């Protein structure tokens, strides 16, 4: 199963976008300009159309800064903390997120796809 087509269709519909604009590399908030109410709808649509259980905080990487702050307070390794919170993302992707964080919200369409694939594996 490749959920990209479904996720792309959901994003196009909710954000009123041309599907051609939606690539796995596109930033959901920074570039596609999704707002919090849009994220809520995207999560609900993914849950219904893909038949997966959705945790909005994890799906949309909402707590990245909180996780990193907690790690800093406990002298824990930042990458390890992110791996524990977001096991659906690869180590390379998490390193990229750490480097990219100062530029703004890091969520990419590919992260939604990775979440859906992991959730489907757990469901199966």
């Amino acid at each position, binding site marked *: 199963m490749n959920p990209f087509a479904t996720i792309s269709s959901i994003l196009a519909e909710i954000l009123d976008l041309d599907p051609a604009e939606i690539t796995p590399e596109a930033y959901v908030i920074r570039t596609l300009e999704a707002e919090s*109410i849009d994220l*809520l*709808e995207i999560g*609900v*649509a993914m*849950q*219904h159309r893909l038949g997966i259980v959705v945790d909005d905080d994890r799906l949309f990487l909402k707590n990245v800064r909180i996780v990193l702050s907690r790690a800093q307070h406990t002298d824990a390794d930042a990458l390890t903390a992110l791996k524990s919170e977001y096991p659906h993302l690869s180590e390379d992707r998490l390193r990229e997120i750490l480097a990219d964080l100062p530029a703004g919200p890091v969520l990419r369409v590919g992260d939604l796809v990775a979440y859906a694939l992991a959730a489907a594996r757990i469901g199966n």
Partner: protein
Amino acid sequence: MKLDFRGKTALILGASSAIGLALTGLLLEEGLAVIPTHSSAQGRDAIRERYPDLAAASPRLDLADKDGLAGLAKILETPVDYLVDLAQADREVLLAAAGEADMDAYFQAHIAHRLALLKAVTRSMLTRRFGRLIYVSSTAAALPAPGQGLYGAAKRAGEGLYQSLGLELGARGITSLSLRLGLVDAGRGERFLDQDDRRQTLADKIMTVDQAAGTLLFLLCDQALALTCTTITMDAGLTAQKYA
């Protein structure tokens, strides 16, 4: 005036109450499907007695039972357009005398578990971009009598949840309203009125079940959808004056 309803199905929490039973009848007359919930065997029997055809469709849903709320997923397989929330356990105790386990359980049930339920219901409504939420509150939220501290605080918290949901989801077609009822001649209102000579001294402040249910029906209809993100009071003037 003919009332219009763009939705088809209403979920009524606490439907075995006198107001819930009356509202169920009004909604059925309007051609809507009703899912009436109960939280006790007594409630289940009350629904069965009044609406035998709905008995099989009446799920048990008790805010005090968090695990039982998992049953919501099954209920929400039927698209729900309207939610009327009459679920509230009574608890009369002076706050300074309230047991800690009791107060924790009461607020868990009526605030945290209510929010969990609302989250599931509104997420289901979001997929259709329509939903109407009505919370039946009480004048005790504004003016609690001594002993109504837990009840009044939970009601006010409930109003807050509904107001915020209407605010946050209004752009997606989900509206919400709280209705503060005063002295309704049923349930705890009836028990209150039956004490001393209250029926005489408060005669012009007593409302009937039909008045409350009829108002709820109107508040659900399309014509009332602009009443959202707010709380209105229906108490025959009970809380309008400074002194009795």
